């Protein structure tokens, strides 16, 4: 019998939600465990096998010197490395510290700042090592996660649409919250993947999947202003879960 491919799951600065998405595949997790050897996944198992690993899923961003070293080690022992979620792909909500004085942040939260060791930025995995595929979302969509794992096991590219949330809204027949209700919405510039969730709950998209390919940010920014959002509110909505890619898209 051929050797089963090995899967490893790694955590950096994050909330655990994206790796939990794998355990949230209640109908598939046991059959997945039949197809792959779960060689390293501390949230699920204390058994650890030595690398190299055929597929590494990486959750979380790099925020410490130690993690800068660790991600290089992970890359060395991984044939394919896929980032899962906004932290690993874009730096996550903790990248808000990139705009701030980190020493002030440390002393605002911790009584003894000397005990805390942290970099002055939160950076995506791709800022440190080559990445084979990036899965967006805060959190990721578990169907898309299964597609990514299946694709890598079969040696093909994952089929993950790069269009906007608007496309998903149209497909599910949700009335446009921006046109019909005047609710500010990031759907026109946000990467699809959630299934256009927020508009189906009568609220505007807040961009947790990050920018789509070639978004028209200027047109949307103008429209958000028309709907009464002030400049600061617009800055804030872009600066939340995918700070860096939205900043890059806005200045492009």
């Amino acid at each position, binding site marked *: 019998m051929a050797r089963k491919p090995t899967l490893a799951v790694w955590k950096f600065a994050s909330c655990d939600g994206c790796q939990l998405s794998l355990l949230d595949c*209640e109908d598939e997790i*046991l059959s997945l*465990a039949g197809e792959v050897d779960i060689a390293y996944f501390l949230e*699920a198992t204390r058994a650890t096998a030595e690398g190299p690993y055929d597929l590494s899923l990486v959750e979380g961003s790099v925020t410490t010197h130690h993690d800068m070293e660790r991600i290089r080690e992970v890359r060395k022992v991984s044939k394919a490395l896929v980032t899962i979620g906004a932290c690993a792909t874009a730096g996550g*909500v903790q990248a808000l510290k990139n705009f701030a004085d980190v020493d002030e942040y*440390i002393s605002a*939260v911790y009584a003894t700042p000397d*005990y805390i060791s942290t970099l002055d930025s939160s950076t995506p995995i791709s800022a440190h090592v080559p990445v084979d595929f990036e899965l967006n979302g805060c*959190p990721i969509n578990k169907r898309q996660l299964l597609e990514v794992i299946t694709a890598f096991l079969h040696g093909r590219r994952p089929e993950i649409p790069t269009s906007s949330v608007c496309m998903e809204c149209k497909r599910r027949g949700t009335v446009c919250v921006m046109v019909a209700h005047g609710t500010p919405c990031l759907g026109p510039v946000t990467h699809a993947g959630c299934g256009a969730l927020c508009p189906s709950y009568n609220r505007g998209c807040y961009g947790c999947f990050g920018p789509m390919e070639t978004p028209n940010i200027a047109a949307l920014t103008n429209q958000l202003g028309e709907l009464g959002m002030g400049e600061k509110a617009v800055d804030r909505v872009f600066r939340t879960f995918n700070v860096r890619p939205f900043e890059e898209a806005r200045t492009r």
Partner: protein
Amino acid sequence: MSTPKTKTIHTKALARVEGEGAMYVRIAGREVEEVKLNIYEPPRFFEAFLRGRGFTEVPDITARICGICPVAYQMSSVTAMEMACGVEVGGQLQALRRLLYCGEWIESHALHVFMLHAPDFLGYPSAIELARDAPDVVASALEMKKIGNELMTVVGGREVHPINVKVGGWYRAPRKGELAPLVPKLERAREIALEAVRITSGFDFPDYEQDYELVALDHPGEYPIDRGRVVSNRGLDIPVTEYDDHFVEEHVEWSNALHSRIIERGSYLCGPLARFALAADRLSPIARDAAREAGL
């Protein structure tokens, strides 16, 4: 008298827990001399970057503190924002919040009991190996977990980082047609949960009891989940707004997680054991019977 032999146990990465932690234990003879739990999870500075955000944005942001229990962080922050605004969410809107919280408890407790803790009690590296010897137990646990996730998805929009919680209420109430199909599923989940109580009560628990101060919420007629005063078995009984007068969060050198203590008396225990100890009389009759049969 000879000096007792000292040994140390140092686990550099704890498996099957939320987040990242290490454990150091030093034992002299038969006496534990020192225990250090090192939460080395890197700091993310939520308290700092929340400053200057719009108050309506806070529940979406605090959810990201933890992907396994986002509702806990959404409910505490949304309640704080509402208290600041002088708004109280009551009636069916409050009942829906408790329902969302129940969804999180069902999926999170099924995860913790069967996928994170049961392998330790039964001597398996993970629930996947456990499933080879006890496929029905793991399959039922996954079914219960899935139903908890479905409840969160209907009420909150999705299971990880729900999107429907809004300061002042909800973005949209779930429709009757969305809620009704959950009823038979939840009845099935209740059967699984009762069986889970029977299974876990047969686990081999260490014979160890500590004299804890137990802390939980307290609201008339309700098992504590989401609201009420902060009470303990040693006479603490305060509104949430007086928390800082009675509790202090200390920063220790070996851990990024702050240590919370009661100012006058020191360490305390909260969570499921404390809730059960302080409010067992407010469990539903079925849950009370199950607890009694389990020998609690």
